[in-house]
């Protein structure tokens, strides 16, 4: 096995791990924004989810209960966002900022008060986490060149939440494009009046999407604290919610490209981790920040409409109000 190939496999493997929280948050944003509700609170929902998962899993060593707690906490925040954005017709951006700030403050203060470890939750034992699963025959196939190596290094050896995230992509596609709910959801984000005049409830549809976003952010948060790590640490989302937002724009609000965008951004992250201090022949050291900045730069360029055009759902960010004739 060549060393370069091995390196690529490891990079891809690490990119998958790093892209999973992005993918959950990105798909969460996709449901919400496809329904017409802007969600810049992905970061906050993921953070509160990560905290809830870490906290509950440390009390009851069962990762599934941790996941449930994450989904409930994140879902509660999603309901707050829904209430402000849909029922009260408040400013969706302001509401999203509030969610992010609240999550950042609450996780730190509750974590410190309850566990007294400076905002961390206690280190989790293996039984309280989602552990890596070795897929069948991974060991046996390992010596097979290329296919076996890829199977062993890249495909096998992730936690159930990784496989679930990947499964969410086709599932989201199916929900969006093959079910009535998905049809209505896409319609309400483009033209809520069309949905209203078709005899459907704009409010109910948007709430369902916002709750869906809450659930998925909960999964993303749980992945961070009880699968990827062994506990919650302060500000552990570290901007992933915003990268996910960038990925969503990059994917033009579609599920399959979302997978691609999240993987790309995950790969950039993995590469940035690896090239730190490495000198490339002819180039010298590439500043790691240059690679970290790429997702943001790419997103701005895309938004500017210079390469392709990222057109958001038409009604996104606009509270629905029947206009009086």
């Amino acid at each position, binding site marked *: 096995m060549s060393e370069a190939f091995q390196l690529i496999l490891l990079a891809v493997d690490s990119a998958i791990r790093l892209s999973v929280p992005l993918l959950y948050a990105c798909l969460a944003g996709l449901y919400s924004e496809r329904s017409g509700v802007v969600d810049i609170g992905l970061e906050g929902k993921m953070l509160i989810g990560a905290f809830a998962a870490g906290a509950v899993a440390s009390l009851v060593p069962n990762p599934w209960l941790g996941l449930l707690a994450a989904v409930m906490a994140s879902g509660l925040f999603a309901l707050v966002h829904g209430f402000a954005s849909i029922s009260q017709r408040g400013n969706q951006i302001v509401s999203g900022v*509030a969610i992010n700030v*609240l999550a950042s403050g*609450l996780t*730190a203060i509750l974590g*410190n*008060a309850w566990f007294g470890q400076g*905002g961390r939750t206690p280190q989790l034992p293996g039984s309280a986490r989602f552990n890596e699963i070795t897929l069948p025959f991974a060991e046996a196939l390992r010596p097979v060149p290329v296919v076996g190596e890829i199977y062993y290094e890249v495909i096998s050896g992730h936690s159930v939440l990784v496989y679930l995230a990947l499964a969410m992509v086709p599932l989201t596609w199916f929900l969006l494009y093959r079910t009535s709910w998905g049809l209505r959801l896409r319609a309400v984000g483009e033209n809520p009046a069309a949905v209203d005049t078709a005899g459907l409830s704009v409010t109910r549809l948007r709430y369902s999407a916002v709750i869906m976003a809450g659930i998925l952010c909960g999964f993303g948060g749980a992945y961070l604290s009880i699968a990827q790590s062994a506990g919650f640490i302060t500000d552990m989302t570290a901007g992933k919610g915003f990268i996910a937002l960038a990925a969503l724009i990059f994917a033009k609000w579609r599920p399959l490209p979302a997978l691609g965008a999240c993987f790309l951004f995950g790969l950039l992250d993995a590469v940035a981790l690896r090239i730190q201090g490495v000198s490339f022949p002819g180039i010298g050291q590439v500043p790691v920040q240059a690679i970290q900045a790429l997702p943001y730069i790419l997103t701005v360029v895309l*938004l500017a409409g210079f390469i392709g055009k990222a057109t958001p759902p038409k009604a996104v960010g606009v509270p629905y109000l029947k206009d009086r004739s």
Partner: protein
Amino acid sequence: MSARTAPVWLTAGVVPLVNVAVAFLAAGLVVALIGENPVEALQIMLRGALGSQYGLGYTLYYTTSFIFTGLAVAVAFHAGHFNIGGEGQALMGGLGAALVALSLPFLPWPLLLPLCVLGAAAAGAAWVFIPAYLQACRGSHIVITTIMFNFLAATLLVYLLVGPMKMAGSMAPETAKFVPGATLPLMNQMAAWFGLTITRTPLNLSFIFAILAAIFVWVLIWRTRLGYAIRTVGANPDAAVYAGISPARITVIALLISGGLAGLMATNEILGVQGRLINEFTAGAGFVGIAVALMGRGHPFGIVLAALLFGVLYQGGAELAFDKPKITREMIIVIQGFVILFAGALEMMFADRIAALYARLTGKLVAV
């Protein structure tokens, strides 16, 4: 003709006060949730923030930064835009000030210091220019682009501080110390010039700048033709077009002013306290600015009051964390979050009810 103007004390007084009170109530619940007494916590905070010269100095030092970032958000609001990038613009303001200070150390201070201050404002404005231009001319949503620019600013600063601008021989990500002529005097030094003795705190000359900036914004928005144009574009873009005011041009100008104000926040921390450029010096002040602007309802007077309140929270919160280790400094962030939620996103939740109550009590129908 049923609705009348609601009295100012109702719209600009009672409604925001109720919203903020609810935010504090919610924060009190959080304090109770972690097993502490909210009333006692409040007392400790107030005493810590206002009970001594030392506390007051720190309170006003925090207030300074929040006035700048709050004004920045407010100016953009008046033009109908949400500049969420105050954090990044403030970071760049620090960079601008540092570049001037480090590259022109030979200048005499009466020249160098104003240039440093200008550098901060110019760099903050420059950092919002691309998002502003893209919003005005290509319709790219400024909320998303300024979020991206926040991260870009943070990344750029880290790169510079661990690379090209790092002080030789230092391990920390920071630049060399500026020459004394590029730093602002502390308040206690200034007091000494007049023979007064006050406790040494980080409070510095930039506090005066902040008050001047608030007056500047008030004059700009309510007493200049440009401010009139800004408010027209924000309130009714169609009327602006009818009047011959270009919404695109005014959008860019208003956002440049907004970015410049955010950049000036760096005068407090970088020119006033640190005397060198350090990493992450904004410490979230850009986001506090959102809460401050919402609470102050976009009016400079309200913003100074709201910034003072957050100054009290930050200083009092530090004291509180010292006295009650269970209530960490992040309590301030929680309160900030509730303020943004109740005074911002849920702003109108109580307004209608308050108007109805007022109508019942006085028999007058009012529009809030």
